[in-house]
């Protein structure tokens, strides 16, 4: 299951990435993210945030360098074993990428189905999680009939349903107002407290400053690690988390009610 706080979940060594014959959009990326950490990935549009995440969720291969995921060298892992690695990574895609023809329920169920879970178990877990994100009345709705915020919660539910060890979110707050954005970020913090390593790409610096987590900054195609910005909270103490949640009026129960 989960490794301790000192195990490295993702490690990049001298990673470079180029598309086709173009210039390197990522150069000499060196980073090692500890299990249980929470990072923001920032940088202007086009800086390479999505590209970096794609390398992490194994949608792209680096042009050079070494990537290890949960301690395994991705390049030398045989192809049939990659799906097992991918199942431990939950992804909230930039445009959600919900399957249009499937209901909210079936979209969220997908990660369990591809790993061969039993339908009885799927029914229980998916219903619970959809209720948890406040979509208990929209289980059979197609994504196109849901609002942007609701789709986003379906996408997040799909990313976390299989209890991934690593959660990657690409601009998950891009399409919603600040209030909703804060709610979603707090959802990620809750999952993080349960042990999931979280990386959130965003260009919304206001949110980054408010939440106070360490930052990975992409600048001129290189990655720079920065400490958490000055904020109300740098510790992982549960007390201040609770205090913060109260401050924003954010607990999941309430999220469910207002969203329903």
């Amino acid at each position, binding site marked *: 299951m989960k490794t301790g706080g000192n195990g490295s979940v993702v490690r990049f060594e001298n990673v470079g990435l180029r598309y086709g014959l173009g210039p390197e959009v990522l150069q000499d990326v060196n980073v090692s993210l500890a299990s249980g950490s929470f990072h923001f990935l920032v940088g202007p549009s086009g800086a390479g945030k999505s590209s970096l995440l794609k390398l992490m969720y194994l*949608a*792209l291969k680096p042009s050079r360098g070494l990537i290890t995921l949960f301690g395994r060298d991705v390049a030398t892992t045989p192809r049939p074993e990659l799906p097992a690695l991918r*199942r431990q990574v939950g*992804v909230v895609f930039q445009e959600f*990428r919900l*399957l249009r*023809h499937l209901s909210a329920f079936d979209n969220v169920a*997908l990660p369990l189905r*591809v790993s061969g879970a039993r339908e009885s178990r799927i029914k229980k877990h998916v219903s619970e999680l959809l209720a948890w994100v406040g979509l208990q009345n929209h289980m059979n709705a197609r994504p196109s009939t849901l609002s942007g915020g609701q789709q986003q919660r379906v996408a997040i539910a799909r990313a976390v349903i299989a209890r991934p060890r690593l959660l990657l979110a690409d601009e998950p707050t891009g399409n919603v107002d600040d209030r909703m954005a804060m709610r979603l970020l707090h959802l990620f913090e809750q999952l993080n407290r349960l042990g999931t390593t979280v990386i959130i790409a965003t260009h919304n610096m206001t949110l980054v400053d408010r939440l106070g987590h360490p930052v990975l900054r992409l600048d001129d195609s290189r990655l720079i690690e920065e400490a958490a910005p000055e904020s109300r909270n740098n510790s992982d103490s549960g007390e201040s988390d609770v205090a913060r949640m109260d401050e924003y009026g954010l607990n999941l129960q309430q999220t469910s009610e207002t969203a329903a």
Partner: protein
Amino acid sequence: MFNTRSDLPLERDGQGRYLPWLIAFMVYLAILALAGVMALNKVTARWDKGVGQTLTVQVALGENQTEAEALDAALGVLDETPGIAQTHRLEREQVAKLLEPWLGRFAEDMEDLPLPLMIDVQLASKIKPDLDRLKQRLDAAVPGALVDDHRLWLDRLIDLMQAVELLAGTVLILIGLACGGTVVFTTRTGLAIHREAIEVLHLIGAQDSYIARQFAGRALALGLKGGLLGLGLALPTLTLIGYLANTQEQGLLPTFTPGLYHWAAILALPVAAGLIAMMTARFTVTGTLGRMP
């Protein structure tokens, strides 16, 4: 294995509308080709068996022998030959009838027209007489006698049948390839249409086989559907051809009633179409997915 629920909206890509008909058409042609070959095969075998057990001896009229003397001499030689079951002299009218296609009806009326004397010989099925010796002895007894074992004619016929069978076999293989090719192209189209959904499945950790199975299961269903449609079209056609063949002059086209083995071969074609479609779809999908990282 194939009853998995589908995560992909495969039923909406239009393949279901035209693929079964393309396959139906190919299976239809394949069944006709196969039935044709099987009928020919049976007919050839019958000719081979029937004609192989008869000889025709033609007695030429020599200058020193009367018709009766020549016949008696020939029959005498034949009677002494082991392996001959029965001899039968063809009457003048029978010979005239045989020649009718060449000489026309007037051959019967021409009393003095010299028609060859023919003896129909049935061979015993077990012992094969020594034809060369028989020819020599007949020639000695009745100079100019001819023994025709129909072999040359039969061999040519059998060569022809074999060529036809080869052709039909090639046609079957080509139809199989065309069936596979059609499925490759429709599956590629399907892959392109469902690319986004496939990519998402891939990224959330679906094995290639999980995705391929959905396409393969659908291809099997469409292939079988097409195969059965083709069978449904071929059966009336075969019945019609059989009916037409029966109303033709008897003997020209010996009647062919398919046996159990023939039915099994014909029914195997729609199943084969389904299996070809399934395997092709599976390989196409895994091949395409293999190019994703």
